[in-house]
């Protein structure tokens, strides 16, 4: 049969050819969009007799003639489009009229829902002056009889029937704009099905009879009392956002309204929604790795309590006998007991709040309720309406769970750039949905079961084994080439889907049935997490590998064929986090699916006339991983370089770790959390590297004590100010912070700690030149002071040198967000004093305003700085006597802490953030030096001795066998082993001292890439509106208000396998 699209084109071509004959012009075929401004969708299963069925009766596996229809609201035309979801076509309800016509409703359609048995659908009417509900009986979801232009209207044929118009469908008026709707079922009571909620209502008196005033036969009958689905009376629950309430309306009553009328809806019950929050005692529960003990600033606090708010019900989510309602007016998600719509009651709400911004009032616009997971859990996802960037919260609403706040997920320190209690996305989120899905496998002589989790235990009986009973879970084990069984592309389990306004659909892991098989083969039975994020495995199975005939039993050898994916991490699947798009495996066949170095780190010397030899230069090398138990064996370091796994002591791929024996450099990339890594990144580890981007407007000003907290100026001479710098946000460490670091991280104390703080606090490096020779400044009194421009060159040197004079360095004693208290860096002050002695302009009147600060005459060195740098200067901030790791993401643990009482203007001081989430946000590495003179040792070793008083971490590199003379974890100096979320290594001091600018560089690939489906693959211009999972199609139904209309996205491929409009 020729489809409508083909017919239209055919007709068009015929017509065009006619014109061509007459006018000799090329025909232009005009395509018509059938769906426009689509917003909401509901699915209706229609039987062969035109009546509705339960949705699960479609698709038509039994050839019973059922049809799955999608009703799509069209907001620009006030219509509801009818789409036959089984074939590529839409239903034109007025085929006599050119173009596509759909079911007209009285005004702009809002939400649309269908009764459980499919007998009718109900659409909210939101147009000005016509607020209400219209009912669409399933019997009329098509063109009226005799509407086919080939069958009517011609001589000898019946007249074409009237088209459906707004009077064809019953409707009623609401007092306020309807929002989301749901059809709930009032279960039968002891006396049978109740009609009305109120026994005294007119509805109740009509028990057993058709309701409504219209006694004549309807062209579009719909009787909800006999439809399929759960037994009981169908009630519409409708949100009225402007009134902050929901109302209950009998669905059959709406259907029975006289056609052409628009009388007030008979509201059986009104439930004003809660407009206050009792947040006392409400607090989020951080996981152990985010335990904020001892860290006052992030102690979880109760959400802010707005004194009251007007509830503004938004998105509905129905599940588990509860109706969850997002609220755009206040920080709660309403929870209604939906077991009896006539007795609709509000339960304790979920509390929308933010773990990291506890003072923010969080409102929600959409919610989704998950089906029960295989573990009997249920979750609610709620869209944080105003978070920037957009985010989605997850609530655990499992029966018996008492916490009503967003889940705070573990691994926060390893995923510090995402809030611990939110899934965060760049573009705003448009909708949320869940899909519970299984593809059960059949075994010989056994029925397929749903919800079976993949079984990795190699001792369990799998298909082909003899003499044992098959464990169904083994059927889901991965194939060695990842083409079947557990793998990222197989969505088997419970998943969340976040649809972004950009047209991307992000897949979220909730309960992946195959998660147990997504892991490394090596087990870790201890309670401590290893470098691959594994812990708590069954002690009887060291490896998830099959037996090797004649060599090893199941689980005994790492060389047996794996029963799991052998991905690099046990956190490949992590609940309520985006799903990985790739197998976390690195191999020459699958490619780089896990963090991998593109090559071993490279060293670049800076400013040395002769490049240092490998022994002379500093080294960055991998080190052992910590043992899982006290006294246990350290983990041998390993890292992928390309697709080759380098391991310590591995032949052909030996990972360099010895600063004496190894000329190559190395680092390791911890596999604990794959989401720590960007898909690709570049790293540079630089000695005394830049901490902040280069600034352009720094001003050296006198310290005004009145502007600072008490004692803040102690130790400094000047205030270096740049309001646009954001020093704390860039990670600047002052002396106090470095002292804190030395104490807590390196175990220093006493004078060693003081020395460490003074020699390692960051410093400002003034990189600017002096005013040009022809500048009239040099003719001024100040310009002629101190010996003129020549004195500046003597004091500070040229600005175009590779390595600037140290006299340009200013040690930071105290850091604030907009200013730094600085003084000369250790060891250089004396050099300036001689030159500064030439500054005499203030000798006569040292108390003059230009020569003093708060009445105190300026020092000569101050006058010299002012003389040479009379305006704002170009500068940078560098780390002192340490290495700085830079990558595309800023990694530091510095926070800007407001100083109490300083609000005009506010003043923020820099402080180390005690938030455990910053634990791995590290970028500073301290050299490990030798306790022996390696240069003169026999044989020589490759680690230098730090000058007296500057050593931070030391060890004896002559201890141990050649090839194994790197620092050991039990060495005292092991505290300087660097580890952050994307790298672990030690930096050894060279025989030669490190020089500012020396660097090691490396690149990584194979970082985390989220699984995303894209509407934009079908059309560039999309405006996603609504998403729902249609289990009958194993697809997501996506409504796009722009060019795609309605689309079905397969969960097998995450590609669009069908879409309307038809062009």
């Amino acid at each position, binding site marked *: 049969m020729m489809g409508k699209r083909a017919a239209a084109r055919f007709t068009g071509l015929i017509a065009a050819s006619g014109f061509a004959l007459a006018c000799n012009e090329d025909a232009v075929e005009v395509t018509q969009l059938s769906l426009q401004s689509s917003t909401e969708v509901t699915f209706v299963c229609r039987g062969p007799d035109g009546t509705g069925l339960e949705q699960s009766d479609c698709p038509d596996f039994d050839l019973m003639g059922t049809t799955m229809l999608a009703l799509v609201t069209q907001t*620009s035309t006030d219509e509801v489009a009818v789409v036959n979801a089984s074939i590529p076509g839409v239903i034109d309800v007025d085929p006599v009229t050119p173009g596509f016509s759909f079911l007209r409703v009285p005004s702009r359609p809002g939400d649309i829902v269908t009764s459980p048995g499919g007998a009718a659908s109900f659409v909210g009417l939101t147009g*000005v002056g016509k607020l209400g509900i219209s009912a669409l009986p399933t019997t009329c979801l098509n063109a009226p009889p005799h509407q086919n232009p080939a069958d009517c209207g011609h001589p000898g044929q019946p007249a074409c029937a009237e088209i459906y118009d707004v009077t064809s469908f019953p409707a009623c008026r609401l007092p306020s704009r309807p929002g989301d709707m749901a059809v709930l079922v009032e279960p039968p009571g002891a006396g049978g099905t109740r009609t009305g909620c109120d026994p005294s209502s007119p509805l109740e008196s009509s028990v057993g009879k058709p309701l409504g005033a219209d006694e004549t036969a309807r062209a579009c009958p719909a009787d909800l009392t006999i439809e399929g689905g759960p037994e009981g009376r169908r009630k519409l629950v409708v949100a009225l956002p402007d009134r902050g309430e929901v109302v209950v309306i009998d669905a059959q009553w709406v259907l029975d309204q006289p056609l052409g009328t628009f009388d007030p809806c008979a509201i059986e019950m009104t439930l004003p929604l809660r407009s206050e929050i009792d947040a006392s005692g409400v607090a989020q529960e951080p996981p152990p790795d985010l335990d904020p003990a001892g860290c006052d600033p992030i102690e979880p606090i109760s959400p802010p309590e707005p004194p009251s708010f007007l509830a503004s019900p938004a998105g509905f989510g129905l599940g588990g006998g509860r109706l969850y309602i997002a609220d*755009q007016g206040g920080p709660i998600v309403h929870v209604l007991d939906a077991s009896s719509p006539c007795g609709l009651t509000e339960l304790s709400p979920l509390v929308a709040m933010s773990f990291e911004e506890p003072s923010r009032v969080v409102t929600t616009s959409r919610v989704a309720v998950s089906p029960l997971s295989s573990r009997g859990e249920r979750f609610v996802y709620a869209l944080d309406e105003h978070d*920037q960037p957009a985010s989605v919260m997850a609530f655990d609403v499992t029966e018996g769970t008492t916490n009503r706040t967003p889940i705070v997920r573990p691994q926060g320190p390893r995923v510090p750039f995402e809030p611990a209690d939110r899934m965060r996305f760049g573009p705003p989120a448009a909708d949320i949905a869940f899909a519970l899905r299984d593809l059960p496998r059949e075994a010989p002589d056994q029925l397929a079961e749903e919800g079976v989790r993949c079984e990795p235990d190699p001792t369990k009986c799998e298909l082909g084994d003899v003499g044992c009973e098959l464990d169904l879970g083994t059927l889901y084990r991965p194939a060695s080439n990842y083409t079947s069984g557990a793998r990222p592309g197989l969505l088997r389990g419970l998943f969340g889907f976040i649809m972004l306004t950009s*047209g991307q659909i992000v897949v979220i892991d909730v309960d992946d049935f195959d998660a147990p098989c997504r892991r490394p083969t090596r087990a870790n039975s201890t309670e401590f997490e290893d470098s691959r994020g594994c812990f708590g495995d069954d002690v009887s199975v060291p490896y998830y590998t099959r037996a090797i005939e004649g060599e090893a039993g199941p689980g005994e050898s790492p060389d047996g064929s794996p029963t799991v994916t052998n991905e690099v991490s046990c956190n490949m699947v992590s609940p309520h986090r985006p799903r990985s798009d790739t197998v976390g495996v690195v191999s020459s066949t699958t490619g780089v699916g896990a963090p991998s170095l593109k090559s071993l780190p490279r060293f670049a010397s800076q400013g040395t006339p002769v490049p240092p030899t490998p022994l002379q230069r500093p080294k960055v090398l991998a080190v052992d991983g910590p043992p899982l138990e006290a006294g246990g064996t350290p983990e041998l370091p390993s890292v992928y370089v390309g697709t080759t796994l380098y391991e310590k002591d591995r032949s052909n791929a030996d990972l360099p770790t010895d600063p004496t024996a190894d000329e190559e450099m190395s680092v390791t990339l911890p596999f604990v959390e794959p989401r720590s890594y960007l898909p690709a990144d570049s790293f540079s580890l630089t000695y005394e590297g830049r901490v902040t981007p280069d600034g352009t407007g720094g001003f050296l000003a006198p310290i005004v004590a009145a502007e600072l907290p008490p004692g803040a100026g102690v130790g400094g001479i000047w205030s270096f100010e740049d*309001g646009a710098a954001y020093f704390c946000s860039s990670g600047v460490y002052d002396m106090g912070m470095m002292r804190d670091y030395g104490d807590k991280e390196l175990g220093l104390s006493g004078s060693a700690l003081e020395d460490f703080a003074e020699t390692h606090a960051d410093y400002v490096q003034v990189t600017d030149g002096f005013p040009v020779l022809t500048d009239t400044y040099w003719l001024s009194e100040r310009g002629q002071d101190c010996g003129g421009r020549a004195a500046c060159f003597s004091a500070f040197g040229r600005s175009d040198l590779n390595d600037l004079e140290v006299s340009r360095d200013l040690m930071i004693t105290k850091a604030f967000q907009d200013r730094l208290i600085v003084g000369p860096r250790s060891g250089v002050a004396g050099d300036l004093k001689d030159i500064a002695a030439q500054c005499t302009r203030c000798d006569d009147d040292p108390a003059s305003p230009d020569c003093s600060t708060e009445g105190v005459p300026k020092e000569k060195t101050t006058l010299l700085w002012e003389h040479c740098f009379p305006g704002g200067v170009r500068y940078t901030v560098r780390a002192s006597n340490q290495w700085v790791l830079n990558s595309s993401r800023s990694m530091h643990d510095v926070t800007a802490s407001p100083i109490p009482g300083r609000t005009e*203007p506010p003043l923020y001081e820099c402080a180390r953030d005690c938030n455990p989430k910053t634990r791995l946000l590290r970028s500073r590495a301290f050299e490990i030096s030798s306790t022996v003179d390696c240069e003169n040792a026999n044989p020589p070793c490759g680690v230098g001795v730090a000058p007296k008083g500057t050593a931070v971490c030391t060890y004896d590199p002559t201890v141990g066998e050649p090839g194994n003379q790197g620092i050991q974890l039990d060495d005292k100096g092991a505290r300087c082993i660097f580890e952050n979320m994307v790298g672990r290594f030690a930096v050894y001091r060279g025989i030669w001292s490190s020089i500012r600018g020396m660097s090691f560089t490396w690149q990584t690939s194979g970082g985390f890439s989220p699984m995303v489906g894209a509407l934009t693959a079908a059309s560039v211009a*999309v*405006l996603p509106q609504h998403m729902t999972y249609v289990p009958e199609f194993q697809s997501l139904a996506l409504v796009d208000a722009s060019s795609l209309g309605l689309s079905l996205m397969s969960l097998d491929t995450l590609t669009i396998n069908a879409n309307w409009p038809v062009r």
Partner: protein
Amino acid sequence: MRLRSILLLLLTGGCFPSGEGIAPRTTQLYFPVGLALDETATHLFIVSSDFDLQFNAGSVQSWDLVALREKVDRILDGECFNAKGKPLEPQTSASQVLYPGRCYPIRHYLAQDEPDDPNNAVPNIPILVDTVEIGAFATDVIHRARPASAPPGEPGRLFIPVRGDATLHWIDVTADGDFLCGQTSQPGACDGTHRSGDDPAAENTRGLRMLPEPYGVAADERAEVVMVTNQTAGAAGLFLNDWTTGPKYEFTLSGLADRPIGVTSLPEPWAVPALGLPHLPAFLIGYRNAAWVSLVRVYFDDGADPPRPYAKVPSRASVLTNSSGIDSRGLDVDASVRRTEERRCAQRFGLDEAQATDPASAQAAGPDYAECVKTASAVPLDTFVTNRSPASLVVGQSRPAIADVASNDLPIFETTVVLSRGPTRVVVGDVVNVDGERERRAFAVSFDSRRLTIYDPARQRIEAEITTGRGPQAFAVDPEHGLGYVAHFTDSYIGVVDLDQRHPDTYATIVASFGEPLPPRASK
């Protein structure tokens, strides 16, 4: 013919270069592209573009809104009448498809052309006050009232970018709605002195003239600064307006993204004069070919001798709320909430609007006023952008930085609202609610699909979609009287939209139309 035109140009003392064809008819709207109201909503100014060059010029008309509203009131009362006030039958439903409204469009005319007929059943009130000819291919129009700080003169001024000769036309408007632009006859053509951007020697020290294809136009509240986008040059032109001598072209802001179209001014926070912050007028510019909106600041360069004003782009906001983010057309900003708060501060401290915007007066009000107005000026601004593909209204809100209240109102876009196909402009204005109070709305015009969408930013939802006639191009709101005016480009007439919710039957519908509809020649 071309030579004759040039000679004619010379003889007429520097009028815009007229095209071929006859002069536009006095009363005829012809492809109207821009609407503007004066500050008291007593006159509506309509710019016609002569889009298909059937005439030798474009035109600007001034309509008497008092007279027009009187007619609208009668139509709302159920009457239909012709141009002479004679009763008419309501138009047929078939006709309403092209020309929405219960009655046939009412033709308009100049008072002197059509004197009132004493025998008319309904008094005949002419609505057309004045008309002048301008260059062809005008693209937009804005009206600014003369500020109190300006020298005495006519109360208002129109600024009109004209693509045909790449100039900015400017016309002074009298209190009676008459035009003053050097025209020598009535009606006539504006003279050359009322055209700016084409005289580098006289206008600026850089030897600059405005680039081709001007499109959008915006001016700050006092019309000190006028910004015009150049849609094919990736540039915008900066004019400094002198209320005595007219605007002068000062600077070409080049290096913008491709196809800048929409431009709107950011209202200067009243904290700026109160805190003594630098006066830096700011604008937002949107693009057809870039997924962002640029913040443009204007610097007067007062410290230089001679000062050479310039503009630059300190930052931009990405549009990530839909799949492409590009093809932005309309752009408007709602500062009403902030202004209300700022006025509240000023009233508390006894300042009127002129004093609040005058640095000396504002700073003399003291630190408490400064603190008050600083908080008020931190109220975010709503920004609306119409995106053509996908058809959407992108809604953003500014996040003013504490340390920089001067002009850092760059929006963050977080909401996308579905529009009908082919949105072009967006206008922020008020409707009258059922209690007779004004409520803020954004009105998005969709040219292709004949829709005017009313968006309620407070409730974050579309309130209504109005089906217009063919080719709605421009829209203006008269909030005081609860009316809107939509210019139909294709059929060259004006529709009147009821924006008063106290009229439940007619709210958000076109209730009347004015002007003699003229289908484009190609459709005849």
